[in-house]
């Protein structure tokens, strides 16, 4: 089933805003939230073990449910009104691939442990108590009232499901079916307002809260599901106590994955493993059942994530290091220890930081305590080096914002270039962060989310939206685009300008501006320079330094509860973003991809997965707490034996021991090989194993590549 939902909420909302024009803004938003819950049809499918489907069956049904949109609706939206704070013009940044991001309505990570243990009623009580505080400002009380109002949505939704289940039960002919529906009805009349008492009720409760979170976002992306095997374990045990079998638990998990795959987009993370509050391994029976369900469902969503620590049991890792999972890009591995240290580097006590969670594809967040701007700001790391070498001008076009850094054209050594780079980066970041702060604040004031505020620590005591200073922590991810290319450019400049004295900065500028046409020899020399990702201390040193500068500047710019978290996250944007970026000093031509995530630039000669891991391990990833994955390809054949799986498990653990936060291991299949055949530029590091020898796939001629693909197909056929 595929119900229409998601962005259509936004289309709805335009009409609703006017109905409460006379209300204070937070209360208006609470009313819109309730109206959306009311408008959404809910469904229970024939085999559903818990309730959770919502949305419209057809476009027509959806259109019919729209409220009539008042004339000129769009213009009447709050942020279009006169007097709404305007933003500084930063078109110059955007023109150069430096995107300060937008207002992030999503990325809230619920603290399901707290929600389940006290039920949603606990928040009602807390808000009511806070309202009695005589020292409250009027503004605060208005916000608290709106939070209380939004809580009405919880029972509105759960009762909708309960009523539907009741009606369906009355019509059910089969006794078992009736029993199933009555069980759903009973649960939905109880949770999530009351705490659940077993696994089924807990899943029902958590899922209902997840729906409410999505609806409140006004967009349905980026709602993760947290450390599921840990917060659900007490309820699992309670069910086992009642005689519920693992097969029944498994059936619930399978439905959960199906439903998350439908509504989770490609960015709903769910995690297994990690440690408990006493630092003991937290792997439990539910963790293994979750992996089993993932292997059975074979869905790419939810994002299955595994928290690995030094004491992770071998058998658990063996289950995760699996051909079935790797071939669908699951799971993503996170280091328990390193991620905790990264979160602590934001100024959170290490004891508290152990409660970090994985949100979407790489965010490390404190569940229920944080306003997490996961969409973040895209930082063009090339631009400050362009400005540094080219006397304050970019390599293409102009930069139309005032810069205070005095331009330079000659340098005595590479340290001076780094200093100039730092100075420009500071100015560029300042522009971006100031814009981002103003944008977030004004949007938070125009469109606050009182429901998410209920679920975010400190918003109740402060009576504020999470983005408006309400949340305990407020973090913005700063994506350092092309950091490896920038590092490689520094390495090349140091080698060719200052050590070998063969070229000047002007030669670099002329060659890059010509897109290396007529400068092929020069480019060959650039390509021969050491590069990040080859386990070369010098090249890795440049990468470390480039990242350290970014980290220092981000730390320097923190203000109030806001922190800026450097990240090497690019997802697939390394290709798309690269298309709009001119040639660069590392030999990269105009429009070519930049490096992906924490990986090397595509021009870097591949030196194998261990070299890559050693290089990435040299980066100070702890300070780069916005999160980043390292992508590694291995042959799927290595996953066919326990010994092979143990080796890959050891490989992952080594990366974490060296300081890595996250690693994604992809297994080679004929499908991947075919893609690599069709687009060799996107798979420069694809390693294949042939008769005791590893070679890069791109080193074969096309005839051999085809043969190789045929062999894989035969092997896959044999495995089937």
């Amino acid at each position, binding site marked *: 089933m595929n119900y229409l939902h998601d962005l259509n909420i936004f289309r709805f909302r335009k009409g609703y805003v006017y109905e409460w024009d006379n209300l204070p803004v937070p209360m208006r938003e609470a009313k819109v939230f309730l109206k959306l819950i009311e408008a959404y049809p809910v469904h229970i499918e024939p085999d559903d073990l818990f309730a959770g489907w919502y949305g419209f069956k057809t476009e027509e049904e959806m259109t019919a449910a729209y409220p009539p949109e008042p004339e000129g609706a769009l213009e009447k939206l709050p942020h279009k009104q006169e007097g709404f704070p305007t933003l500084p013009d930063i078109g110059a940044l955007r023109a150069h691939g430096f995107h300060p991001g937008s207002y992030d309505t999503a990325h809230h990570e619920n603290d399901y442990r707290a929600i389940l243990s006290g039920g949603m009623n606990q928040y009602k009580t807390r808000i009511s108590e806070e309202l009695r505080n005589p020292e409250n400002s009027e503004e605060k009380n208005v916000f608290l009232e709106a939070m209380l109002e939004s809580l009405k949505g919880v029972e509105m939704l759960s009762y909708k499901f309960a009523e539907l289940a009741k009606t369906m039960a009355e019509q059910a002919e089969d006794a078992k079916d009736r029993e199933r529906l009555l069980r759903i009805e009973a649960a939905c009349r109880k949770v999530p307002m009351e705490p659940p008492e077993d696994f089924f009720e807990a899943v029902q409760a958590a899922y209902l809260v997840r729906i409410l979170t999505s609806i409140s976002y006004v967009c349905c992306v980026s709602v993760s599901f947290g450390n599921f095997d840990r917060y659900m374990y007490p309820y699992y045990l309670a069910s086992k106590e009642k005689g519920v079998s693992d097969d029944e638990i498994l059936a619930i998990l399978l439905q959960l994955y199906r439903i998350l795959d439908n509504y989770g987009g490609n960015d709903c993370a769910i995690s297994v493993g990690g440690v408990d509050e006493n630092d003991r391994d937290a792997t439990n029976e539910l963790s293994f059942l979750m992996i089993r369900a993932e292997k059975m469902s074979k869905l790419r969503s939810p994002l299955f994530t595994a928290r690995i620590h030094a004491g992770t049991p071998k058998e658990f890792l063996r289950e995760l290091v699996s051909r079935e999972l790797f071939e669908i890009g699951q799971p993503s591995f996170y280091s328990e220890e390193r991620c905790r240290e990264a979160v602590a580097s934001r100024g959170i006590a290490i004891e508290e930081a152990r409660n970090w969670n994985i949100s979407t594809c790489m965010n490390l967040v404190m569940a229920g305590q944080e306003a997490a701007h996961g969409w973040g700001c895209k930082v063009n790391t090339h631009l400050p080096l362009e400005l540094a070498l080219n006397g304050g001008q970019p390599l293409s076009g102009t930069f139309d914002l005032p810069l205070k850094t005095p331009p330079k054209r000659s340098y005595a050594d590479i340290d001076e270039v780094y200093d100039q780079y730092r100075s420009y980066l500071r100015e560029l970041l300042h522009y971006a962060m100031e814009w981002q702060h103003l944008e977030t604040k004004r949007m938070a004031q125009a469109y606050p989310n009182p429901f998410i505020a209920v679920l975010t620590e400190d918003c109740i005591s402060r009576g504020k939206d999470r983005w408006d200073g309400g949340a305990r922590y407020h973090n913005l991810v700063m994506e350092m685009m092309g950091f490896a290319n920038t590092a490689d450019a520094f390495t090349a400049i140091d080698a060719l300008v200052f050590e070998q004295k063969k070229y000047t900065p002007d030669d670099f500028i002329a060659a890059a501006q010509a897109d290396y046409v007529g400068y*092929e020899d020069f480019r060959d020399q650039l*390509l021969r320079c050491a590069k990040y990702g080859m386990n070369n201390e010098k090249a890795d040193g440049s990468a470390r330094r480039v990242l350290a500068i970014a980290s220092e500047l981000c730390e320097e710019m923190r203000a109030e509860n806001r922190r800026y978290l450097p990240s090497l996250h690019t997802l697939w944007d390394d290709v798309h973003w690269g298309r709009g970026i001119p040639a660069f000093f590392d030999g990269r031509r105009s429009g070519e991809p930049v490096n992906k995530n924490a990986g090397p630039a595509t021009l870097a000669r591949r030196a194998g*997965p*261990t070299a890559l891991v050693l290089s990435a391990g040299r980066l100070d990833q702890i300070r780069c707490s916005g999160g980043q994955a390292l992508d590694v390809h291995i042959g799927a054949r290595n996953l066919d*034996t326990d010994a092979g799986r143990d*080796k890959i498990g*050891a*490989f992952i653990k080594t990366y974490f021991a060296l300081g890595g936060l996250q690693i994604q291991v992809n297994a080679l299949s004929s499908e991947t090989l075919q893609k690599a055949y069709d687009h060799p530029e996107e798979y420069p590091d694809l390693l294949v194993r042939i008769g005791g020898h590893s070679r890069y796939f791109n080193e074969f001629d096309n005839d051999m590549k085809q043969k190789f693909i045929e*062999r894989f197909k035969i092997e896959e056929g044999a495995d089937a």
Partner: protein
Amino acid sequence: MADGLVFDIQHFCLDDGPGIRTTVFFKGCPLRCIWCHNAEGLSAEPQLYYASEKCTGCRKCADVCPENVHSFRETGHDVDFLSCVSCGSCADVCGREALRIAGRRMSAREVLKDVLADKPFYDQSEGGVTLSGGEPLMQGDFACELAELAKINGLHVCVETSGYCTPQTLRQILPFTDLFLFDFKHHDPQLHRRFTGVDNRRILENLRFLSENGKELILRCPIIPGCNDSEPHYRAIAELSEELCGVTAVHIEPYHPFGLSKYRAVGRKAAYVRDELLDRRDAERIRDHIASLTAKPVVIS
């Protein structure tokens, strides 16, 4: 402390012994197995290696070569390997690394430094270093020095060998080796000579010697259609594995043609030209068959 000749050092090798390993490929081999997939490992001298798919036709190589090895015609880049003295001038100017010299003289300490870069992986996975080739024991002193240094540094050491070496070399390396990956190419002495250029008597003596000295051994058995894919050979593999207590496993290595391009790259003609892989299902049948004749584990490598 003689230098050795090495044509490759490969990291993250998962099939050359326990754990994550680095494999050092020694250049030079006394055998001439017609199916050899490491053509650049045969000669005991450095040699030019030309990867034609990387050549952009820039002709810089032709400009610098003192022996006029490189010429460019309508058909493309011609390399006169016979005239090449392996001076490396062309490799130095080749911007795309289409040309390189296969074979580098290195001291054991230099090799060890490269190998030790991956120590964190060996520690985590109980892996180590594998000496392979070519034939590592053809450079006996160098191999022993490297193995000894590796042991001193706490590494697990594997030697992958054809077994064609002097008993002295074997005795010398014995204390520094944890596991031998020992080739068994043909049971029949005459056919062994025909397909590999040497008799198998010495090889089998060395194999027994290692087993009698309590060394752990894995038999590595290439399966080459038309050469050794026969029932008597399968039986011989099984019998040998049963007879020798040191043998802990049998690895079946099905033929593949992916080494053929390497012959072109070093200007040699391949003696065994077969484009097709040994079918995976056939390989599994052979594995199962041998496994039915021995109690030792038999796996496809």
